[in-house]
């Protein structure tokens, strides 16, 4: 039986993999999924109009811009897929996954970090290239940026775990996939 204190990474005052830390991130990712999916359905033509309270035709111009069609799939559909990966990667694993499933934690970080930064790049393109703003695109960007900081603490705990594994001459690749796996070096 492990105690709450055992679940904390060595030298940490809290457990970044606890459900209190992760649960709301999953919820926020789902909100982002629905917003981005709605915008993507508009880009696909499934929905005829898009909600835009402030910037007039801004959303239409942004969502039908050449930049949004650089890839074969509209960018908001890709955004929705990224949010789905965030939600799933946020949900997999137990409350000690920073040491039991480092690969999921690092996948989670890789999904949250770049998704947020790509959102910001797209937001900067709105005024610079199109001279237009899109309300729901901004909301989606705020959601993805909000997730970055709270997701990164868990990534840090897993990277520290991998560093300790390497210091104990365990192959990093093995530690990444199998996690703690019965070894004792994860505690201090």
């Amino acid at each position: 039986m492990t105690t709450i204190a055992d679940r904390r990474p060595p030298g940490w005052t809290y457990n970044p993999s606890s459900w209190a830390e992760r649960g709301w991130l999953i919820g926020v990712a789902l909100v982002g999924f629905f917003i981005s999916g709605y915008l993507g359905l508009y880009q696909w033509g499934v929905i005829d109009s898009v909600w835009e309270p402030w910037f007039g035709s801004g959303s239409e111009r942004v969502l039908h811009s050449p930049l949004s069609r650089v890839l074969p799939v509209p960018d908001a559909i890709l955004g929705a897929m990224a949010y789905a990966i965030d939600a799933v990667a946020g949900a997999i694993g137990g409350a000690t996954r920073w040491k039991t499933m480092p690969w999921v934690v690092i996948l989670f970080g890789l999904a949250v970090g770049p998704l947020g930064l790509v959102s910001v790049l797209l937001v900067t393109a709105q005024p610079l290239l199109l001279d237009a703003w899109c309300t729901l695109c901004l909301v989606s960007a705020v959601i993805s940026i909000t997730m970055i900081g709270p997701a990164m603490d868990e990534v840090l705990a897993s990277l520290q775990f991998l560093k300790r594994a390497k210091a104990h001459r365990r192959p990093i690749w093995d530690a990444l996939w199998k996690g703690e796996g019965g070894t004792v070096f994860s505690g201090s």
Partner: protein
Amino acid sequence: MEGGTDVWASALTILLGIWLAASPDIMGYGGHARVSNQLVGVWMATFGTIAISECMRAVRWVNLLLGVWLVVAPFILSYPDERACGSIAVGLAAISLALVRGTVSERFGGGWTSLWRPGVDGH
């Protein structure tokens, strides 16, 4: 546990960034100042948001660099006087806010620097 109890410096930085990005449209100006302020504003608000998390508080140093850019940009890009005053004022405010570390009540096993410091345990 994620955000510190006082994150006012981050909050003000986010507001500065939003103002910077919106001001070209609100005040109706163009040129280099418009492009610089829209770009820097969006990124300043972004890094200000990330820096709310205690383990990412160091990201505020990026906003210090953005603040320095806002102070020197009017000279490099030859802003008109009123744009120069605004850019320098916001830049100095951003620099001041980036110097505020805020409360960090949690510990993170030595933090990010533990990853490249020698030693077995990161603390």
